[in-house]
């Protein structure tokens, strides 16, 4: 079923499938609407998915493109879903899975959304790809634009982690570092996008971009053997990823591809930027913007566009939105690394720390199947783990080694042939 229109989430006014994102009548956000799938045969969809490539494009029937995506782009998605028994044991849970989206071409889930936005931008004839980014999207936009042979401009806060800036600059993009926080970057880009014919992934292409996050839900369901998990724990920055994961499950349940109901949705924020968690705790429907101050820079959006929808979703599914401190974030990074071998960036530390908090509070039934969505790679935020462990430094001699490492078991005795 092809995309049909852009529809305002608030007043339901419809618009053509152009590069627009705001309802001109009520200023609400526009979302892609598809032709009805009523009466469709789910088995036909399943066959088409299974015959597709090992990337997000296996789900192209559910993505907002008119034609087939052009070849030569970086394939995103189809990342591992790993059963994390050691983590589950540590938390007193039975079944925990990690969706490791660090295993994407530019090491975060942003490859999914950037791919979809870029594919649509090319369909509409755009020649410049751009974004407002806290880092990961800048990586993805620069890489996917280069792979497609398009020029790109990425706008970031000037104080971003050096790793993210370096990993973006290599793609021959134009990095515009703005002296301000992400919300300042977003404001400037919103103005620029009104004046230039550029495809801003998360501004004038935001309705298409956001759809890319649904592929996380599709993959999780498919990788679990066409089943919906009981609970999802995922990070909230703007709230787009969080709400679109639920939308992905919803679409497949409506279609009959999977059975059950939308998982309990638990959102994770950092205390230093927790407008959605604060609104959840105060039982408000809208978020009061904040000035971010946290090590979780990829989640440092003080004025989250989809905050009201994230709140509604968490409440509707019996979930919650929690916030954790910077110390808990580092502990979360360590916990995930020590129990699964996956090294995640600060956003994944936030998610793991919130999972641990929920388990500790006894909010997760031990019988539940829980999936934590790990959205990015630890090598991008290396500085935060500095000082969280010690290195054993010794002189270059066997004796020095023996003197420091005393408790090693004896060398095995060779067995006679």
């Amino acid at each position: 079923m092809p995309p049909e229109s852009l529809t305002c989430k608030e007043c339901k006014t419809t618009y053509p499938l152009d590069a627009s994102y705001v309802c001109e009548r009520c200023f609400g956000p526009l979302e892609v609407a598809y032709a009805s799938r009523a009466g469709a045969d789910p088995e036909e969809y399943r066959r088409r998915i299974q015959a597709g490539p090992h990337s997000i494009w296996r789900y192209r029937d559910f993505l907002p493109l008119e034609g087939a995506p052009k070849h030569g782009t970086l394939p995103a998605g189809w990342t591992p879903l790993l059963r994390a028994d050691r983590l589950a044991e540590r938390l007193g849970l039975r079944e925990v899975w990690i969706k490791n989206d660090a295993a994407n071409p530019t090491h975060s889930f942003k490859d999914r959304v950037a791919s979809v936005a870029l594919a649509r931008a090319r369909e509409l004839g755009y020649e410049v790809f751009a974004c407002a980014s806290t880092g990961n999207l800048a990586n993805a936009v620069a890489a996917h634009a280069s792979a497609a042979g398009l020029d790109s401009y990425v706008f970031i806060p000037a104080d971003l982690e050096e790793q993210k800036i370096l990993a973006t600059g290599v793609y021959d993009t134009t990095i515009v570092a703005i002296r301000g926080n992400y919300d300042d970057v977003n404001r400037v880009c919103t103005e620029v996008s009104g004046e230039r014919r550029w495809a801003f992934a998360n501004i004038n292409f935001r309705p298409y971009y956001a759809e890319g996050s649904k592929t996380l839900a599709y993959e999780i369901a498919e990788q679990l053997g066409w089943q919906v998990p009981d609970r999802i724990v995922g990070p909230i920055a703007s709230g787009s990823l969080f709400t679109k994961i639920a939308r992905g499950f919803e679409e497949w349940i409506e279609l009959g591809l999977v059975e059950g109901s939308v998982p309990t949705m638990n959102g994770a924020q950092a205390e230093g930027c927790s407008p959605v968690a604060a609104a959840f705790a105060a039982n408000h429907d809208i978020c009061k913007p904040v000035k971010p101050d946290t090590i979780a820079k990829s989640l440092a959006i003080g004025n989250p566009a989809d905050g009201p929808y994230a709140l509604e979703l968490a409440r509707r599914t019996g979930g919650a939105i929690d916030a954790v401190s910077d110390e808990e974030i580092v502990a979360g990074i360590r916990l995930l690394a020590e129990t699964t071998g996956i090294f995640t960036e600060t956003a994944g530390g936030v998610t793991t720390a919130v999972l641990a908090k929920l388990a500790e509070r006894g909010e997760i039934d031990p019988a539940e199947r829980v999936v934590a969505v790990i959205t990015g790679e630890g090598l991008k935020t290396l500085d935060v783990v500095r000082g969280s462990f010690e290195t054993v430094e010794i002189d270059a001699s066997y004796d020095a080694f023996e003197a420091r490492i005393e408790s090693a078991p004896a060398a095995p005795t060779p067995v006679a042939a």
Partner: protein
Amino acid sequence: MAIVVKIPTQLRAATGGASSASVDGGTVGEVLDALYEQFGELRERIADDGGLRRFVNVYIGGEDIRFLDGLETPVSDGDEVTILPAVAGG
């Protein structure tokens, strides 16, 4: 006092295409009221119960008015007020 208000692309159908307007007022609320006087259609698009719709951001010199005194925030001659959609980014 002359305050310049920058109009986003999405609202320019209601301003006859104008990308900015010059109005008088002592607070952001008064500035917006003066703007609605000039372009009647703008009121129904962004105003709500005497306030602003939830997906409208208003800035003075780049600062979100919710970090100041909201619609009561004083403005002075030469200030620039910017209206933008709140649904971008992330």
